[in-house]
């Protein structure tokens, strides 16, 4: 029973909002707890446990002694591990730059063409994005078939048009294997930068473009001096996500060339090497949780530090339109 105040008015109405706030707080807590628990359990805990595992010696799944930075030292400087690490790292860097040019470059060009409403733009907008929604497993599997040396569509097509001399075991040849993977990745993902750049282009106020057209008739000047700076936010998203994706590259090479990065490590990347080391594979058989964790920690640190500082740098050149 609410106590009447001196002027005889019940105090209940004043109390109701406080009740409602706590009700709302409960509701928010109810919504927040499950994702926080999931994040903590499956993201934060593994990161920190990997960090911890990396400092121990492991016998199979049994944790041994604390060994300090020994695991890091092994994967970075001790042969034969170091050679594999640096080879994989070098391949990751190559993949990143190649995709930066092919995937993001083509993405920008496609976005520009779609934005200019060239004939068929509506069809191409969907067509370009379609592979993005396909599962990487399917893409990898289908392209692996396409690249089959004898029955694959690629070589069959080359022979059919009289370019049989170019036919090659694409995924088995050291010169072409990594490039073939990069091509498939770009084919599958080019729709993403296209869409992000297109969104950026569509955000540019038309009067600014008109104003620029009053001052220059060179499309290149227009792109370089006006359009590109104005879609900086899109570029930030595409660049940083591609960087993270390139150094976490795993599914596509795993499905198309297997865990060993065949042939002869030509397609080996850090993701594959980490997996082989931590969980072992059929051919090598050995498994070292400590070294695997050290690799994972190094990859995480490298990606986090570079992605963060690059984002900060790229953000600086962004301008609110």
């Amino acid at each position, binding site marked *: 029973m609410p106590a009447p105040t001196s002027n005889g008015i019940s105090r209940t109405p004043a109390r109701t909002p406080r009740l409602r706030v706590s009700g709302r707080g409960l509701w928010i807590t109810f919504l927040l707890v499950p994702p926080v628990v999931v994040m903590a359990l499956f993201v934060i805990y593994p990161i920190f446990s990997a960090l911890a595992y990396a400092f121990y010696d492991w016998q199979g799944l049994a944790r041994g002694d604390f060994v300090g930075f020994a695991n890091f030292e092994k994967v970075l400087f001790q042969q034969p591990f170091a050679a594999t690490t640096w080879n994989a790292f070098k391949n990751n860097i190559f993949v990143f730059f190649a995709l930066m040019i092919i995937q993001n470059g083509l993405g920008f060009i496609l976005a520009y063409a779609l934005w200019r409403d060239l004939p068929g733009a509506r069809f191409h907008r969907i067509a370009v994005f379609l592979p993005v929604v396909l599962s990487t497993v399917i893409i990898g599997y289908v392209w692996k078939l396409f690249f089959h040396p004898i029955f694959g569509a690629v070589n069959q097509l080359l022979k059919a048009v009289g370019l049989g001399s170019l036919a090659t075991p694409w995924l088995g040849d050291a010169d072409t294997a990594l490039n073939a993977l990069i091509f498939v990745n770009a084919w599958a993902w080019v729709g993403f930068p296209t869409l992000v750049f297109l969104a950026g282009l569509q955000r540019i106020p038309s009067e600014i473009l008109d104003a620029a057209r*009053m*001052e220059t008739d060179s499309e290149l000047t227009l792109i370089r001096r006006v359009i590109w700076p104005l879609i900086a936010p899109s570029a930030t998203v595409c660049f940083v996500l591609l960087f993270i994706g390139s150094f976490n590259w795993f599914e596509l090479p795993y499905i198309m060339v297997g865990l060993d990065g065949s042939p002869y490590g030509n397609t080996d990347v850090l993701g594959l090497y980490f997996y082989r080391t931590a969980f072992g594979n059929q051919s090598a058989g050995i498994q070292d949780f400590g070294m695997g964790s050290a690799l994972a920690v190094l990859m995480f640190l490298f990606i986090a530090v570079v992605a963060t500082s690059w984002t900060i740098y790229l953000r600086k050149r962004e*301008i609110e339109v």
Partner: protein
Amino acid sequence: MAQLSLRGVRKNFRNVEVLRGIDLEIHDRELVVFVGPSGCGKSTLLRLIAGLDDISEGEFTLNGRSMVNVPPSKRDIAMVFQSYALYPHMNVYDNMAFGAKLMGLSKDEVQKRIDETAATLQLGPLLQRKPRELSGGQRQRVAIGRALVRKPAVFLLDEPLSNLDAALRSEVRLEIAKLHNDIGGTMIYVTHDQVEAMTLADRIVVLRDGMIEQVGTPRELYETPANAFVGTFIGSPRMSLLKAVRDGDRFGVAGSGAVLLPDAPETGKTVTLGIRPDALSLAPEGATDGFEAEFEYAEYLGNDAYIYARLGDGTRVSLQGDTKNLTHRPGDAVRLRPDPAEIHYFDSETGRSFRRP
């Protein structure tokens, strides 16, 4: 030097005809204002002159040279946009230098022109700022400055004041008028605001539905509108249009009686009378002439006052008057006396003006 000539200019967007045959000559150093209700095609016409859109049909020449297939940047025309359209990633200096540099001017020349322009428009302290750090009025001045730096033959201004508040608007309006006096370039100015049109223009082009209704000086448009549309569009409050039936010199309005209007021009039996607020007055009480009407309300504006009344056929009319000694209440019967010399006669069908002989 800039002499613009438009002949039979048409513009279609897919199946919609936005401009339906525009013939217009614009002379050197003239400030011409395109005015009309929204959707009349005035901004489209400006964009055709700028080269931002292509002409569907007809001819446009600048100083005798056809502008078909000449890109906007090569027309020697600069444009100030409604939203100012400053480059958000460049500071004020670079915004003004961008076009000038692309014209191939030397660095010193660009610097000199920007210094001059900045002095004229008081932009000196703002040169290093980005557009988002400027107020609306300052952005407007930068947009004008960007056009000035290029020293173009023709300036196009697309509703440049519509994003400013009322006080700033009249201030910038004065600045534009002064600027036109000082630099003497040819200016084409688009607005839907007839006050801007009246105060700035050497000549006004009134557009409606993609056609030119009338071209003339502000005075010509006000005093001798070619049709009822121009009559009502120019002047505030609007000219009242009365549907009248003529019987000799007597003009009757349904439900309001008739008035005697000697020396009216030749008209048909039915005619539309155009009466501006200053051509109508309240008859003193007890008078028996004038139109019978019902007093509605009065508007006191300080230096001016307007009285609104309703005629017998439901037409609302406005008149300029003294509200100081007004004792009428809404619903009171009043009599309105038109000034015969100031009345406009329009064809009821076509809206065309009947001129006095």
